[in-house]
């Protein structure tokens, strides 16, 4: 497999779009809607801790992917089994994101179009992109991230006349349990998923800058999400709780001089690109990971069939949007917690316990 290298800056950008990814249209933690923008910041702090710890794995085994580390730490058989679990997680994440976007399109714009017609073109370009490799993903990601950041910053000005600071109050009226649960949910769902990058870090050309790059990306992504949420609350007030896609919804409230109205299609398309990168990263990692577990020389041939699997999964992952929302609220934090925090920490712990010999092997 030819090593494709990306720069730390590109890694940061990838982290940004991966984190923003699908959360931006289907936020978790609606329960705490009014304070969500604050919870995002708390969750960001929490997640920075998680990821910081997880990155110790990369420090300990530089140049090794997560799966290679698993085999080191747990031995080949158990290691591969755990890696397989992660593959499932990546598949689920990718398919989930795809499902989110198809649902979004289906409920907001293309109500009569069959799922497949929306899924198929998307999957085709995702497969095409993945076959071109990580470098291409990273490069095409850069303008997309800049566009999204630009859009979010521009929205600050667009919503100025619809923004009511009164809507932000009260700051804390939720019970501690709600706050805690939703903070955790956000910490593991958009932020914790960055555990995926443990598979890609060896492909960064300056390993010593990796940690800073990942953390910086998370901070920027967290800041953007928080800002967007802040605006959404200020514009929608408590109405936001009503909507399935509040961050898109608040763009519908923009009215500037009778001309700029009904703008939601623009953020919708823009946020789609973030999800696009996210799904592409999932598929890429899935292919590379499978190739690694099965000790193949090339991941490219796997992209196509795995893309088809993602497509099938995306159709078969949620029976209905209501169950989807339910899942996000109740189950997803636990699943993500298992994969994004528990397993990496376990690996780190075991590797410390098994100690010296491993390190020698690694070095």
């Amino acid at each position, binding site marked *: 497999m030819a090593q494709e290298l990306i720069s730390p800056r590109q890694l940061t950008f990838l982290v940004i779009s991966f984190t923003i990814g699908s959360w931006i249209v289907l936020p978790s933690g609606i329960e705490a809607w009014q304070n969500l923008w604050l919870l995002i910041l708390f969750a960001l702090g929490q997640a920075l801790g998680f990821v910081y710890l997880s990155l110790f794995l990369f420090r300990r085994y530089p140049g090794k992917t997560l799966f290679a580390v698993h085999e080191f730490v747990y031995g080949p058989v158990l290691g591969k089994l755990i890696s397989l679990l992660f593959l499932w997680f990546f598949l*689920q994440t990718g*398919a*989930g994101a795809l499902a989110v976007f198809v649902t979004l399109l289906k409920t907001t714009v293309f109500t009569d179009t069959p799922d497949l017609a929306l899924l198929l073109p998307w999957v085709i370009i995702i497969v095409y992109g993945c076959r071109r490799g990580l470098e291409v993903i990273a490069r095409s990601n850069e303008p997309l991230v800049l566009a999204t950041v630009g859009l979010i910053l521009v929205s600050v000005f667009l919503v100025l006349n619809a923004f009511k600071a009164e809507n932000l109050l009260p700051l804390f009226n939720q019970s501690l349990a709600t706050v805690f649960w939703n903070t955790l949910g956000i910490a593991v769902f958009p932020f914790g998923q960055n555990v995926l990058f443990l598979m890609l870090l060896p492909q960064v050309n300056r390993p010593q800058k990796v940690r800073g790059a990942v953390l910086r990306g998370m901070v920027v992504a967290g800041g953007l999400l928080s800002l967007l949420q802040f605006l959404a609350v200020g514009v929608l007030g408590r109405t936001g709780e009503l909507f399935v896609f509040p961050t898109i919804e608040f763009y519908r409230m923009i009215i500037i001089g009778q001309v700029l109205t009904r703008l939601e299609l623009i953020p919708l398309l823009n946020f789609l690109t973030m999800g696009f990168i996210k799904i592409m990263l999932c598929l890429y990692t899935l292919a590379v990971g*499978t*190739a690694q577990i*099965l*000790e*193949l*020389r*090339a991941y490219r*041939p*796997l992209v*196509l*069939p*795995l893309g*088809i*699997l993602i497509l*099938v*999964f995306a*159709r*078969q*992952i*949620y*029976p209905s949007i209501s*169950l*989807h929302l*339910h*899942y996000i609220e*109740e*189950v997803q934090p*636990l*699943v993500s917690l298992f994969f994004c925090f528990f397993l990496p920490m376990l690996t780190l712990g075991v590797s410390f316990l098994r100690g010296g010999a491993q390190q020698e092997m690694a070095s």
Partner: protein
Amino acid sequence: MIVLIVVVFIGLFLYEAPGLVAKEFWRELAVFTLLMLLGLFLSILLASGVELPYVESIWVELFMGLRKMLASGS
């Protein structure tokens, strides 16, 4: 519909496989074929209207059951 799916899959297979054969990537070919067959199988099931279980509802039921158990236990 099923015929169309099979044709598309065969097309995709023919698109990818010759390259692998030329490079003598046998292992890759095997995995590729396997995954393609899996995809084909699932697609045909979907197309023929067989009710497949929804992935996340399994999790939801599992976890909700767990939560309920915990709630009733405590």
